[in-house]
């Protein structure tokens, strides 16, 4: 007996998406402004629903399990989608067409992430992944007037298809060896059976496929081009939502399905983490474009998050969950500031940010504290996040101390390029003809909210920490 009642979050999200689609078609063109607000309100309501029903637990289909872990990630995606929606208000209105479609696709992408993060079974997991990916292909190419956007869309589509193919191949190899697509079942069969080459290859393909999504080096190459070309709110959503969803699934696969193969995947994940931290941070330095810079910073952040997997402990998983949530706010904050700037000046170049602090103190402050949080400077929320991640690695084994030190060193490097933006904003002189920035009220409120959360969780991280660790614990419950 399939308990469809437990799918309430997925069903409600799908309903919201369909409703937005219908609304966009039925309502006369000039009155479509309301659809953005409707999306925001709907996502907020879903977020409230997720919070109120966080105690829900149960199995819908074999491997499709509702637990605190999945609800935590659902809340994360909804938060990201909500902030991305607010970010889109002016941006999409200025594009001037098909608003209903845009917001509906945003919600469907969220639905895909939810499925991806909830599923413990390879086929449904893949379904979620594709739902997320295909909606993103469309959204990335949404700026029809801009060839860069189209280029980004094509690149993302082709490389995404490539990674999906690899991933599917991996899945088929795993199924072929184990005879099951349910992760817990796979875990049991591997422990009893002999690991062989086909299984190892399957595992490598799966990790490669997900590395593409979490932008781990050397599978990151699409990210800078796509991040730069996509509409800024979509870049923001892609960088936090897609990445977190891929992490949610990767953690499930590695710890539920391949826990006793850790001796194989640990070195691989360690290498990916090191490469991402080093390359992401180093290449971010010479960047001149804010979105490209944030793309490389996002590659580096993916590297930090992989440290949590390397620690292979509850502490590490909890740290990933905590950091992923903080990353939503910090990265969204940075992209919101970038969007606000783009809406006015139609530019993403760092040199054009000169004197922004005088033209828009709030926008500059949001950018400053967001990148400071990304760099892990106290008292901002990124600091405890990095503290948890790095100490989880150290706590695992002192022989991994070098990895934590590398993370620290690379965080120090990151301060350099983050401060490039800050330096331009606070010490540069604005071009004389540039006036104050026009920022919509909704955006201002969202920015203040992000600032407040970054400071609150930096000073008193315990509420979220407890939630994240509790969510991490449920993953390991039988």
């Amino acid at each position, binding site marked *: 007996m399939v308990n469809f009642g437990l799918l309430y979050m997925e069903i409600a999200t799908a309903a919201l998406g369909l409703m937005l689609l219908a609304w966009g078609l039925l309502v006369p063109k000039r009155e479509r402004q309301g659809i953005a607000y409707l999306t925001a309100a709907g996502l907020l309501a879903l977020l409230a629903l997720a919070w109120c029903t966080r105690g829900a637990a149960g199995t819908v289909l074999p491997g499709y399990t509702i637990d605190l872990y999945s609800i935590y990630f659902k809340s994360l995606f909804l938060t990201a989608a909500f902030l991305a929606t607010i970010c889109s208000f002016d941006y999409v209105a200025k594009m001037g067409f098909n608003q209903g479609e845009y917001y509906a696709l945003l919600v469907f992408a969220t639905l895909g992430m939810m499925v991806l993060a909830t599923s413990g079974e390879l086929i449904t997991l893949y379904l979620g992944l594709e739902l997320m990916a295909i909606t993103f292909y469309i959204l990335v190419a949404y700026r029809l007037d801009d060839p860069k956007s189209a280029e980004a869309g*094509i*690149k993302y589509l*082709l*490389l995404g298809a*490539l*990674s999906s193919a*690899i991933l599917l191949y991996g899945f088929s190899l795993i199924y072929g060896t184990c005879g099951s697509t349910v992760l817990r079942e796979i875990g049991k069969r591997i422990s009893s059976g002999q*690991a*062989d*080459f086909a299984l*190892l*290859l399957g595992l*490598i*393909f799966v990790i*490669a496929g997900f590395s*593409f999504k979490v932008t781990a080096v*050397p*599978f990151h*190459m*699409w990210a*800078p*081009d796509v991040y730069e070309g996509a509409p800024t709110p979509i870049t923001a959503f892609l960088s936090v939502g897609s990445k977190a969803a891929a992490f949610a699934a990767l953690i499930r696969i590695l710890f539920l399905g391949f826990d006793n193969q850790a001796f*194989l995947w640990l*070195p*691989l994940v360690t290498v990916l983490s090191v490469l991402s931290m080093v*390359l992401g941070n*180093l*290449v*971010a*330095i*010479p960047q001149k474009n804010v979105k490209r810079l944030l793309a490389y910073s996002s590659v580096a952040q993916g590297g930090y998050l992989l440290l949590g997997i390397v620690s292979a402990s*509850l*502490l590490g998983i*909890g740290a990933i969950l905590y950091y992923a949530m903080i990353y939503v706010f910090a990265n969204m904050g940075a992209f919101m500031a970038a969007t606000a700037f783009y809406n006015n000046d139609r530019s993403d170049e760092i040199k054009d940010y000169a004197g922004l602090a005088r033209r828009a103190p709030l926008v500059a402050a949001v950018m400053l504290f967001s990148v400071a949080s990304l760099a892990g400077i106290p008292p901002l929320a990124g600091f*405890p996040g990095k*503290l*948890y991640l790095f*100490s989880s690695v150290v*706590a695992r084994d002192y022989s991994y101390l070098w990895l934590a030190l590398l993370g620290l060193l690379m965080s120090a*490097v990151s301060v350099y390029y983050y401060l490039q933006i800050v330096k331009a904003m606070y010490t540069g002189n604005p071009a004389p003809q540039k006036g104050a920035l026009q920022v919509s009220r909704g955006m201002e409120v969202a920015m203040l909210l992000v600032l407040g959360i970054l400071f609150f969780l930096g000073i*008193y*991280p*315990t509420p979220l*920490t*407890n939630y994240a*660790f509790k969510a991490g614990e449920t993953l390991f419950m039988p």
Partner: protein
Amino acid sequence: MANLYWIPKAWLIPLLPALAFPFIAFITRKARGLSALTAILAIGVSLVISLGVLWEVIAHGITMDNPVEYSTVWLQIPQLLKIEAGLLIDPLSAVMLLVVTLVAFLVEIYSIGYMEDDPGFSVFFAYLSLFGASMLGLVLANNYFMIYFFWELVGLCSYLLIGFWYHRAEAARAGFKAFVVNRLADFGFLLGFFFLFIIFHTFNFRELAAAIPAYHNVGLLTVAALLVFTGPIGKSAQFPLHVWLPDAMEGPTPVSALIHAATMVAAGVYLLARAYVLFASLPNVMLVVAYVGGFTAIFAATIAIAQRDIKRILAYSTISQLGYMVMAMGVGSMTAGIFHLTTHAFFKALLFLAAGSVIHALHEQDIFRMGGLYKDMKVTTVTFIIGALALAGIPPFAGFWSKDEILAAAYHNGFLGLYILGTLVAFLTAFYMFRLIFITFFGERRAGLHGHESPPVMTIPLGILALLSIFAGFVGTPFTARGFSTFVYYAAPHEVEPDYMVMALSTLVALAGIALAWWLYGRPSDLPERLKESYRWAYNLLWNKFYIDEFYLWIYRRIFWGLAEAFHWHDRHVVDGLWDGVGDVTRASGQKLRYLQTGNLQTYALVFFTAVVVIALWMAGMGGMIR
């Protein structure tokens, strides 16, 4: 514990003044009256809650062994680190809360008059509020981490307030000196409780109190305890880190009253009491504590007899009295130390505020340019004398009972040397205080300066503190049933036995000190000048405070400066060169690595596949699974 009303609200005590700080700084700064009102209202409500807390602690039988603790986790890494934020309410903290809020409340009222014409009036009240809040947070803290947080905040506030008149070079320097000396000591304290954390994996006082007696690695614990003790050496101005306190008088006088009585130097003694289990389990450390305290007491008292500045004399008397308190802790009587801290808070605040009243009237601090002030300033004179009598330890004033308990504790716990030393300090104390009084308030007007009585807003706090200086000691006399010693104690409550010999002797030497002061300074005489001439070297030694400051300056100039030069060279040429190189390499490699990103889709796909193949080969090789 069901029907506690005030104690669950104790968190408001530090919070209200803490909120007053930003409120004044950001909102009411332009409105002077409103700023003062905000600050006084905040600390006033805190005072009321503190009274309620103390009352409930007594009424509900909350004892040292049976405290109330509220705690929440502030920051944790499961299995590695847990830092709490919490309140610990026991008789010790309840008494301290009352002392701090009461003194701070009176000082803030007094400041309305004293700071009347100051352009920084509102900011002054904002700082005072933050100062009070920090100290109250420190008192309520239930763990080392939190106490350290507020400990640093207290240090910061003292810096801000000592250097309040920052446009005066001496004031700015004094604030800086206080901060640097305290930081030095705080670093030791920080290391100390980190040691404790490494050993016991907790910062919590009660958990530590349970764990310490069962721990047997005395060597490690001794290191930790000595490091923790450096905190009080700095904050409570013990030798050799006492040098900041005399200079701290550069701040406005109400600040001096606050620092010397309630919010700054008290923190060190309070920490000793809070961490007493750590010290009590280590007899050797106790010995160090006792002798540091005893030495500081006599050392500072001798300096005080040769000073001419009214506030400087009081400052050295504070150091000397703090030495008493630390000595009490060291000889094993935590009760006596805290009791003396309490009574001292009242009469030292009184003395400073009364001295402030004099300074306010004359704009002069050199006592040898004063004289005959009792004719102009009756209230100030009377209250100052009451404070001095309490400080000198004349019965039945408050200071007598607490000092007597310290001396009795030293005598009965087998520290005969420290007892004699303590008695000698009592003699010196009486002498220098009454030297000050005879010169300042009696005799002829040396420089023709006329005073005028201060406004009621200043004299009423003086009156209240004078009453407390007379009566506060009665809570802890040996004749009081269920007195202070059964309330604030370590290990077990005990009744103090009156020791008439100790009492009589300390009273006699104090009276002798007053008599000597009268003989030398209370009547027209050229004896002091002649003494000064014939014992020039001794006078110079005392006048220059044993040249401690000069010694530190010499060390700083000759040794640190030379070292710093060497380090500077090393830093410029070796470290900078190295890191410039690292920076250049980092940036250059970023530039180079950037070219991996061609923008070419085929390249991306190629890299993707190559990576998969390389990984597969690598892992297959590692797994040894290519068969």
